[in-house]
């Protein structure tokens, strides 16, 4: 499926020598003018700024510096626990695949690398894609997410994924429904604290706003949490919504402390909305 382009800006100045699309921390000889520094700091005689040199009453020699553009790595950390199999208004697995395809497409288009790690209780090696710039490979693997077996009982593997992503800062999308215990949320986000983390919250209206306000329902937990009879009625629905809000507030609080608030993905993947979210936060 063809999705719109996701526009993103890294929040940090990436380093590195690979030429890409993002404004780099490093200054070099090509690109947009950045500043002038003393010749002693950058002894590059080709870039001596004659006007600045002449203007200096202390007769120092100045060299122009230009911003280099570098590439970054965009990673998608996908929660593969069984709860992601949920199908309400939309299939959660398809949403994830759409999002990842959009990311793979948008990243490789501007020369960034796209990597993918799927985790349930541990890292799922069959759903791991090392960061690659090959568009074909990246989109293919992202599209393959629809065929992945969501079967784990938890998302603990994301903690291990954080150690695997050590090194230079990266733009990391953590894609999950975040139905995790609070300590795990904290652990995952703190493990990824060095990176620019974008939590993508998969929600479904059928699971909160659109719950019936009256009737008997027997819920079956996708992650093997058992069955439970619930007698839906307005008061219980209100309590349910209050709980749900409390959960999302907790997630927002933790996520904001480590960077960005979560992006709510529900119904249909909208690249523009994600772009807006990425620009605004």
């Amino acid at each position, binding site marked *: 499926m063809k999705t719109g382009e996701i526009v993103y800006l890294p929040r940090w100045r990436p380093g590195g020598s690979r030429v890409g699309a993002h404004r780099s921390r490093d200054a070099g000889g090509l690109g947009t003018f950045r500043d002038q520094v003393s010749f002693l700091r950058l002894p590059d005689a080709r870039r001596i700024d004659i006007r600045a040199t002449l203007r200096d009453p202390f007769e120092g020699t100045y060299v122009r510096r230009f911003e280099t553009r570098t590439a970054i790595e965009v990673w998608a950390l996908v929660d593969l626990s069984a709860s992601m199999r949920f199908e309400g208004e939309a299939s959660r697995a398809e949403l994830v695949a759409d999002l990842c395809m959009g990311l793979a497409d948008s990243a490789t288009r501007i020369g960034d690398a796209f990597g993918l790690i799927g985790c349930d209780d541990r890292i799922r090696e069959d759903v791991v894609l090392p960061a690659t710039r090959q568009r074909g490979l990246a989109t293919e693997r992202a599209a393959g997410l629809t065929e992945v077996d969501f079967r784990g009982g938890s998302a603990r593997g994301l903690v291990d994924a954080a150690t695997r992503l050590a090194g230079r800062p990266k733009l990391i999308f953590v894609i999950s429904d975040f139905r995790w215990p609070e300590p795990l949320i904290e652990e995952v986000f703190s493990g990824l604290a060095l990176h620019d983390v974008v939590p993508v919250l998969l929600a479904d209206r059928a699971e909160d706003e659109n719950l019936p306000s009256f009737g008997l329902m027997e819920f*079956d937990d996708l992650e093997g949490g058992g069955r439970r*009879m*619930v007698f*839906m009625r307005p008061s219980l629905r209100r309590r349910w919504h209050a709980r749900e809000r409390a959960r999302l507030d907790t997630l927002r609080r933790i996520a904001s402390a480590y960077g960005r608030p979560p992006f709510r993905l529900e119904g249909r993947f909208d690249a523009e909305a994600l772009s807006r979210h990425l620009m605004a936060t």
Partner: protein
Amino acid sequence: MTLLSRLGATLPQILWLLPLALLPLVVSSQRRTLVSAIAAAPADALSRTIGWALRLAGIVAIGGLILALSGPYRSGETITRTGIGAQISMLIDRSGSMNETFAGKQPSGAEESKAAASRRLLADFVGSRAHDQFAVTAFSTSPMLVVPMTDRHDAVRAAIAAIDRPGLDYTNVARGLGMALPQFGAGAAQVSRVVLLVSDGAAVIDPKIQGPLRAEFAKIHPNLYWLFLRTKGSPSIYDKPAGEDTPQAAPERHLDLFFKSLGVPYRAFEAEGPEQVAEAIRQIESLERDPIPYTEQRPRRDLTPWAYALAMAGLLVLVAGKLLEADLQGGSRAAAGRTAPDDAADERRLAA
């Protein structure tokens, strides 16, 4: 556990299916709704109660059906209880004179023969107390056993209804008593036993039979009531004959004397009309008020309807659960139809 031991089933092998009743603990009758996390649902005591109630209803429904198929019953039994009453052995005279009125004539018009009067009054007596037991023996020349000792009052009433059939010949009290006495059988000794002799005359008791009769009376020790239906003009029990005082001359008096000499509680009632007969019967009834053990037959009782009712109750609960069922998709349509403003506010809040 006497109750359990009395329960049975026509097809007990079907009961082997009873473990199937535990199925509702494993499988639910409700439609499952898959959710990503059950923890999202708030803990709710009412929901939990309903959940268990439905499970229980499932167990009851399956269990009840299996039980009903096996054809349960409670077997019959005989219960011995204690009531107020007496064992009464009636000895009724069927001699020809019983068909006459108290005036000694053939009944005509509204007149009532002695037999008819005693029939009417005795029939009322039978069944006035629920736990009396009766035996009916008739006698004339020879005794006839009509009904042995029983608590089936209908049978006794039918026997009494038959006593105004035209009578026969003579009055042979001795042989009548000889048959009436063994009717008591070997029961509990503390039961009050009554021999009720209804006759309109007496006869000489052969001295040869007097011995065994005395022995029998001494063994059974019944209360003896003699209801003497005296024909107008005939000698009374208490009249001494003018001439020789021999049993042949005054059989009534000598029978009375014989009864008095038996050593058992004895009363004679002399009745010269239906009113006096009724009065005498009333007196006898009031005298005999002792506890009596009686048996009650309880027939085998089919419990299948109860089992079906049980299953029905369970099924009704399950159907109610089914009717109340809601699901996510239907719910979303309903909510979309409503689009209440507070819902919209909720959404904004959640989406924010």
